[in-house]
């Protein structure tokens, strides 16, 4: 019996720890007929370090957020650009397909074998005061998570405040920040419903955040070929789809918690002026991404079009 050591982060009740890892562990154990057993380990340090710890064989597999390593993982950010407007499940499947077809050859994940890609659900504005027009958010102190959120914040004219996610609760409570960009699930997970009683929901959300799941290639190499194939057979698109779906799940739970706690959910329609203004505000961001990855040797325009088409087709077929 071989132990496959998975490094994780985020609270135990996060979908990644509650659903994704246990499900994949079961798949792996079934596919290898019990010859490979998955063991999950926490407390390994900053999540950005997990990429390195897998590469150096301290753990065998893990997942992390691309935005934590600016400059290295530029291509997967294609999925984060505003305006895609699909669920995490659709985005995750499309991102995986695009990774296989276009991004893998650029070797951004040197030293790692990527076995899945996914996104969290659409990001919204959670705020202390209701925000129903773009004038109201101008100059407000908003905590942002970097990457695409910074670009959005700049266009909205907010005062950005950088802080790690666990500090958000206190900062909102004390009024250091007026709001935060985050997916709906954080109403439950970060308990935003207690401190940010207003959510402005642009239809389809404002942006997505992307993650990858990766494994140590040496670990795979040392396995019996049939076990290696077995592990890979329960990964890839299958794993990406399952992860995206699980992350959609926490958004649904967050939405329910928000409703139960009387959070003011401002659900805009496509036709509302605020939505229309948002769509014109984000014009050109896709193009900016294409230009930003010009040095990666990938047909970026074709890739992002492929990604968006796949995502929307998947969403419509759901």
């Amino acid at each position, binding site marked *: 019996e071989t132990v496959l050591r998975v490094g994780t982060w985020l609270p135990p009740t996060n979908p990644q720890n509650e659903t994704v890892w246990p499900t994949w562990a079961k798949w792996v154990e079934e596919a290898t007929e019990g010859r490979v057993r998955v063991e999950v380990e926490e407390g390994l340090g900053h999540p950005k370090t997990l990429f*390195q710890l897998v590469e150096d064989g301290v753990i065998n597999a893990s997942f992390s957020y691309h935005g934590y390593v*600016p*400059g*290295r993982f530029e291509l997967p950010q294609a999925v984060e650009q505003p305006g895609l407007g699909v669920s995490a499940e659709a985005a995750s499947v499309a991102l995986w397909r695009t990774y296989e077809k276009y991004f893998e050859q650029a070797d951004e994940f*040197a030293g790692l074998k990527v076995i899945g890609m996914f996104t969290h659900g659409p990001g919204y504005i959670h705020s202390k005061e209701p925000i129903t027009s773009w004038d109201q958010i101008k100059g407000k102190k908003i905590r942002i998570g*970097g990457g695409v959120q910074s670009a959005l914040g700049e266009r909205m004219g907010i*005062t950005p*405040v*950088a802080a790690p996610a666990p500090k958000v609760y206190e900062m909102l409570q004390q009024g250091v920040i007026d709001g935060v960009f985050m997916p709906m699930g954080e109403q439950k997970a970060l308990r935003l419903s207690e401190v940010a009683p207003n959510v402005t929901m642009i239809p389809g959300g404002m942006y997505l955040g992307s993650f990858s799941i990766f494994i140590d290639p040496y670990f795979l190499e040392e396995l019996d070929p049939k076990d290696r194939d077995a592990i890979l057979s329960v990964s890839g698109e299958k794993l990406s789809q399952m992860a995206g779906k699980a992350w959609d799940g926490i958004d649904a739970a967050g939405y329910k918690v928000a409703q139960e706690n009387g959070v003011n959910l401002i659900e805009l329609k496509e036709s509302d002026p605020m939505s229309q203004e948002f769509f014109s505000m984000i014009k050109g961001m896709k193009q900016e991404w294409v230009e930003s990855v010009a040095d990666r040797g990938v047909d970026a325009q074709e890739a992002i079009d492929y990604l968006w088409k796949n995502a929307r087709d998947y969403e419509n077929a759901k």
Partner: protein
Amino acid sequence: MSLASWVNSRYEEVGPVKWLAFALELVAAVVLFLLMAITCVDVAGRYLFSNSLDGATELTEIGLAIMLFAAMPIVTWRGGHVVVDIFDRVIGGRMVKALALFAALVISSSMYFLGVRIFELAERSLRRGVVTEYLGIPTGYIVEYIAVMSWFTALGMISYGIYRIFANTAK
């Protein structure tokens, strides 16, 4: 008082090591002062101009690393690290000296090997183009600095640190 006599009076080290200690501490002191200033400017900017200092967080992070590792060699060779001294009186003087020598060798070799790995990781990070979020500074350079200062700490410990153990107990 001239700078030379001031440095002479302030530092216990001998010869050129004095000036080295002064230079390192000067870097650390200036960076600490800047850390304080950056926070004040950032907060003031947020309220007065509704605009905070771009990248204040990452400047703080980089400054913290520069400051701490500028001081690390001096703190280490002076034997300044925190020691648990519950059973101090039980152990005799010669034994203390032998144990201190042992500890010094262990400390310098661990800092050396750690530095080697840190340097490799820095090069890897540079190869892959990892930069900071707002200012786009290659993080590998900071990590290389940490590696170099770790070697420096090892070197200081195995030379001046050990010299000091013998000089002190000879008194």
